[in-house]
Structures are given as structure tokens and as C-alpha cells.
């Protein structure tokens, strides 16, 4: 196959902005993010006929993008986490009168989100896209290739997990 099929072109055009923004959070630079997503799309192109036969092609494409971004982060000697740089992109820091005082809270929340990635990658991805990026339920569903109902229930479960972790941390802080 030497030309991009029309259906892949359509998917690429629709999803690329979200994919690049995701990659940028982990790779920090737009150029690096573009390169990672270019590589991911090339892998998708190579496997396109097989992907179309899968039960969830969009979900599979998301997993290719996600893992390629992680590989690129590792190749650059970076940890593939939000914590390294994205914490400093927190909106609250940009609008706070005293951002330094707020930084520990922001780092704590981002760290809790990182832990979520280890136990449930799906909860992590849904929460990052909804709460960190501010995507609508519909946009998250399209990006990840899951239903709206799954986005809502997964987000609820993610929030429950995060609240439990943060609550435990806050109680530890209260213990003399």
C-alpha cells in the first residue's frame, strides 16, 4: 500500500489535534509531539488492514499513539509522566497570587494521577482528558474509542480512587 486510504486520512484529520496535545503534555515541545504522532500514524498505516478487522479500531489507534509517545519520552531520557513538566502548566498556578505556595498541592494531585496510570491506564487517560485538558465527554469518547457511558462511569471511578488517595494523604498530614 503506497497511498493513505481515505478512511485513515479521515481518522487522522479528526484525531490528530487531540493526539498531538496529549503527546505535548508528556514530551513538552510541540515539535517532539509532532514527531511522535507522525511515528504513531505511520505504525497505524502499516497495520491498517488488521486494525479495521479489530473489534475497536479507534481504541486500538489510541493505544498505538499512547505507547509511541511513551517510547519517545523514554528515548529522550525523560520519564513518560505528567509530573515532570505538566504540573507547571496547571491553570491554578498561572492565576494564583502566590503560585509557589500552591505548588505542593498541584504536585500532589499530579502525583496521584500518575499513580492512577499504574493501576488503571483507562481511568488515568479519561481523567487527564476530562479534568486536566477540559474535554467534553463526547470528545473523550471519540479520542479513546469508547462510549459516552463508559467515559462517565470511568471518570466517576477515577475520581473515587483519587479522592481516596488524596484523603489518606491529607489525614497523614493531620497526624501529629
Amino acid at each position: 500500500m503506497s497511498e493513505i486510504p481515505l478512511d485513515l486520512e479521515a481518522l487522522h484529520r479528526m484525531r490528530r489535534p487531540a493526539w498531538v496535545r496529549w503527546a505535548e503534555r508528556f514530551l513538552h515541545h510541540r515539535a517532539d509531539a509532532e514527531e511522535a504522532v507522525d511515528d504513531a500514524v505511520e505504525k497505524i498505516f502499516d497495520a491498517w488492514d488488521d486494525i479495521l478487522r479489530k473489534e475497536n479500531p479507534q481504541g486500538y489507534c489510541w493505544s498505538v499513539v499512547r505507547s509511541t509517545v511513551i517510547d519517545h519520552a523514554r528515548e529522550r531520557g525523560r520519564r513518560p509522566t505528567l509530573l515532570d513538566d505538566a504540573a507547571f502548566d496547571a491553570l491554578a498556578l498561572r492565576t494564583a497570587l502566590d503560585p509557589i505556595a500552591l505548588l505542593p498541592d498541584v504536585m500532589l494531585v499530579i502525583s496521584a494521577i500518575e499513580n492512577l496510570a499504574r493501576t488503571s491506564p483507562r481511568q488515568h487517560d479519561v481523567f487527564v482528558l476530562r479534568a486536566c485538558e477540559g474535554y467534553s465527554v463526547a470528545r473523550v469518547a471519540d479520542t479513546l474509542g469508547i462510549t459516552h457511558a463508559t467515559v462517565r462511569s470511568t471518570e466517576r471511578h477515577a475520581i473515587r480512587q483519587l479522592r481516596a488517595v488524596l484523603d489518606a494523604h491529607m489525614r497523614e498530614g493531620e497526624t501529629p
Partner: protein
Amino acid sequence: MTDPLDELLSKARLAPTAPYTSSDVDAAHQRLAARIAARAASPAPRRETVTRQRSDQELHTLCTVVVSEPSAVEDLVAFVSDCMPGTAGGRILGSILYLRDRPESARFWWQYAAGDGDRAALYCLYLHHRAIGETGEAAWWHEQFQARCLPGTERSRLPALRSPMQRLDGHSRQLFERMRAVDNRPVPIFQALRILRSLRVKWSLPDGLDTVMDYVAVAVGWADPDLDLPLPDWDFVTRVKTLTAHGTTPSARHRTARRILQTRSTRERATREHAAEASDLPASRGPNLAPC
């Protein structure tokens, strides 16, 4: 007054990145088209693509061998029934799901078996990540696999070499016999897979396993976002036993399988309709686990 935890979670909101415009998308598409055209002009396949294709083929072979073991169905039933499931069933369940194109679910069950040091599961994970280009993860699983192959202990023996030889065609059987006559030592797993692939060994699955595999592929699903587990239906054990009942002819097994799948499809449709009426309720599904 705002819940302090909600306030803390709200601090996760990140400032938006620079806009990604339609011009950016057009430029990306042109880059992609140029890359693909450049590759088409060069006849040699990319090394990475060849490696991934080979890994996928080897994984397919390994899974076929795993599910062809004489005790595969028995181990699978025992796995789902036991209070403390062992690793053999996890390896088999993962391999069935992979052969039926459920790689995410397969990966979960291989990880379960690998967590207890099952070498076949560790190798499946290595091949799986290699096949999808996740080189970092593949390397990690390979290290775990090698750590299980300590010096002085028996190296990983592919189950194929214990399986009845009558499932190989005549040519492949002769080759294996000649190999064994020359060197009777256990064959390293990667070598065995390459041999099997080069021989284009044609495995015929044991009678009845095809229908069981078709059923397993639809009977294992993501039950609950809280658990993130691909779990079998509550009546999985009963259904598998029905499908593998002794003395049942292949045509009877196919009729039974069709009936089971139709019943399941009707039940799923009813569940979806119910879920649509109360859209926030998760579907209920769980393993057939006896109380411990």
C-alpha cells in the same frame, strides 16, 4: 463550603497548549504522505516492520501450541472454578483471547500468569509488546523471562515437544524426529518458535477446542470500570463443560455452541436495553467462583 478534596482535584486543570489548527493538520498529512511515498520507492521492508511481523507470527504459533495442550480445556475450567486460580489457566485463557483477536484482554491474563513466574506467559508478553512496537516493555518482559531461566535449571521447554506428534503433518514430524535424534536437549523457546514458523507447521486443534475458543472470546468481557478486569460470564464453567461433553459429535457441539451464543446474544441485548434506560448503571458480570 467547597469540599477540600474537590478543590484539590480542580488544581489538576492545565493551561491549554498552543492551538492546533487545520493548517497544522494539513502539514502533518503532507509529511505522512511523503514518508509513505518514500518508503514505497524503496523496496526493502523496514527492519522494524519485519521484526514486528515476525513477533506477531511467533506469538500466534506459541498461543496455538499452548491451547493445543491435551489438558488445556481442563486447566481452563479449573482456573475459572478455583478459589485461588493457578497460572496454567491464565496462560491458556490469554492465548485463546489472543487467537480470537482480543489482545488487551489476553495481555491481562498473561500478566496474571506471569506474576507467578509462568515462563510461557512471560514470553507471550515479550512477543506481544514486540509485535506492537513497544520495545521498552518488550525488553522488560524479556528480562523477566530470562530471570526465570536460571543457569543449571531446565530451560523453557515448549509444550509442543510433549504434545502428541500425530497433530503434525508427515514432513514436520520427520523433521522433529531427526532433530531429537541429533540433540535431545530441551530446545530454547525462541529457537523452537522459529523452527515451527519455518516449517510452517500445520497444527490442527484438538476436537471441540475451536467451538470452546469461539465461546471464550465472547464470554470474557470488561465487567466493571472499578475492576478493569476481563472476566468470564457467571455460567462460563457450565457452558464450557457442555461444549466439551464426552461422546458429543462435532455437529452436535456446533449446534450447542450456536444455541449458547444465541442465548448470550439475547441476554446481552436485554442488558444493553436496560442500561440505555438507566445509562449510569454498569453491566453486572462476574466469574463463576465458588465461595472459599
